């Protein structure tokens, strides 16, 4: 493992993280605010001898990803919210066929064409399946450019270890901001997928990757297997906490909003308010046990999201009535800043929310 320091945009960190992870195929389609990814990939992928394809649509890109993943070759696609909606078909098929595709969503405002600013309005789509059928993606929510880099490496490892699609859910803020990133190169397990990947049936029986199960009981068995896998993945869940030990109020927020909430909490700490922050780093599996452990008597929770209230439902499910959970939604379309979170936090502290 070799490390060096670079000054990168979040979108660029995604590219270099993927290449460090051994990604050798990229399929994309232009959409703001993730265009730096296909633009940079079009030259960087060629340098490592990989394949770059500008697809005819996000539908095409996601299905090219399905094909490359079926070959056990590390590949990913990226887009932003409206484009990721178009990819849901292929993501469902990848989940059903147990294919390790990696998808990056640098989310923007919605519904519909929305805007090109940051938003967390795709939380439900990301963590509840998104397409048809009972399936989940492993979902990472980077808050820094360093995490954007590191999460791409983790995304491929998890995708291949568990044979599930992995979604990296960033937003316009993360994609466009620039920060120092320590780049590093992991050891890639070249054997991952060697017992299922397609390469031509030379000297062995043929292999089949599919999601159609028509025989009596076959689909039920397949779904049971997938559900067991999702349950077994629960220990991979992660929650980052700051200042929660003595906190009267814990703010739960993910991605860049988790980071902005931390700035607000830090300001309030200086004024003597006992406020902590809990940031889910994995959105699926959701850090249920870690959140429950924080629900001591008398402590309240406030979920802050840049949407109209999505993750708050999972926070309430996790805490199962053991603590009060208030919600503050910063509407997509407005760029958030820490000062705007101060009053909602004070209101929640005073139990007015």
């Amino acid at each position, binding site marked *: 493992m070799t490390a060096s320091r670079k000054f990168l945009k979040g979108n660029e960190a995604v590219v270099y993280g993927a290449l460090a992870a051994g990604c*050798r*195929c990229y*399929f994309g389609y232009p959409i703001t605010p993730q265009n730096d990814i296909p633009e940079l990939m079009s030259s960087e992928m060629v340098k490592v001898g990989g*394949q770059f*394809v500008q*697809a*005819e*649509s996000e*539908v*095409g*890109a996601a*299905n*090219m*990803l*399905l*094909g*490359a*993943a*079926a*070959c056990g*070759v590390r*590949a990913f696609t990226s887009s932003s919210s409206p484009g990721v909606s178009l990819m849901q*078909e*292929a993501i469902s*098929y990848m989940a059903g*066929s147990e294919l390790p595709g990696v998808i990056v969503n640098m989310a923007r405002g919605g519904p519909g064409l929305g805007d090109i600013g940051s938003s967390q309005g795709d939380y439900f789509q990301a963590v509840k399946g998104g397409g048809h059928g009972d399936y989940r993606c492993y979902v990472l929510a980077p808050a820094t450019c360093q995490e954007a880099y590191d999460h791409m490496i983790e995304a491929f490892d998890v995708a291949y270890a568990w044979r599930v699609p992995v979604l990296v859910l960033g937003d316009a803020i993360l994609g466009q901001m620039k920060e120092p990133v320590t780049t590093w190169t992991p050891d890639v397990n070249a054997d991952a997928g060697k017992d299922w990947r*397609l*390469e*031509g*049936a*030379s*000297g062995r*029986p*043929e*292999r*089949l*990757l*599919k*999601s*159609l199960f028509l025989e009596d009981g076959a689909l039920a068995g397949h779904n049971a297997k997938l559900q067991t896998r999702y349950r077994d993945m629960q220990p991979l869940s992660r929650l980052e906490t700051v200042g929660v030990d003595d906190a009267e109020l814990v703010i739960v927020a993910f991605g860049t909003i988790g980071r902005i909430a931390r700035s607000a909490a830090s300001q309030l700490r200086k004024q003597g308010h006992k406020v902590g922050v809990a940031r889910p780093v994995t959105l699926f599996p959701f850090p249920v046990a870690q959140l429950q452990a924080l629900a001591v008597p008398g402590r309240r929770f406030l979920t802050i999201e840049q949407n109209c209230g999505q993750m708050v439902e999972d926070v309430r499910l996790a805490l199962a009535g053991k603590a009060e959970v208030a919600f503050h939604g910063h509407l997509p379309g407005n760029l958030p800043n820490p000062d705007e979170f101060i009053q909602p936090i004070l209101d929640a502290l005073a139990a007015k929310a």
Partner: protein
Amino acid sequence: MTSINLAALQQEGYTEVATLPEVLADRPMHYCPGCHHGIAHRLVAEALEELGQVERTICVSSIGCSVFIYNYMHLDTVEAPHGRAAAVATGVKRARPDAFVFTYQGDGDLASIGLAESMHCANRGEKLSIVFINNTVYGMTGGQMAPTTLPGQKTTTSPGGRCASTEGLPLKMAEIMAGLGGVAYSARVATTSLKRIVEAKKAIKAAFQCQIDGRGFGFVELLSACPTNWRMTPLQANERVEKELIPYFPLGVFKDDANDPACSVSGGDS
């Protein structure tokens, strides 16, 4: 599965005149009597064997009756979503440039829901092959109107017959593909008689050869019978291909860069 004791039969004086290609599974097909998928499967299998491609082949199956091609071919196979086979095949070929990659798709899949994926794959000149089965209806879902349904043809969604003024005219895919820059070979064939079957196999091998030589995208359209959804006997359906389909969908080679080097988009397999 029944196995034949060839040695015993030969002792009785029988002579072996034909064998199944090894890549073709020795199992009864689910296709309806008179359906041409079985012939097409066999031609693909023979072409792969004769060109020595079986062991490096990855098949991309599509949605429709032929989704089960993987039950009949001993090939590594991935199942594509409806219409997306050409995009999936692009991903497969880019990930494994040394593999021989082909899709097998019906008319609803390729020419309707998958038109964008199919045409852009062809236009990029992906080094892969598409076997396109045109039987003028959606077969598996019960005989609805397809983009290739003939004018006046009655289907479950065009009960009065396809009306050109409201439903358009059938897409001639082999001609459309021939007009795209990345296409090295495009032909339309039929499998209604022994003579046509021989020609069809020649076309499939020519399309496959484009990929082996790295010359570009190869496309073969097979006019096929669907007796069940045409409400016909196998013989009537076979006759319909000759009398109704071929006049609208002319047979022939619409592009072959082996005969026209100016059409070639690439000097070799990249």
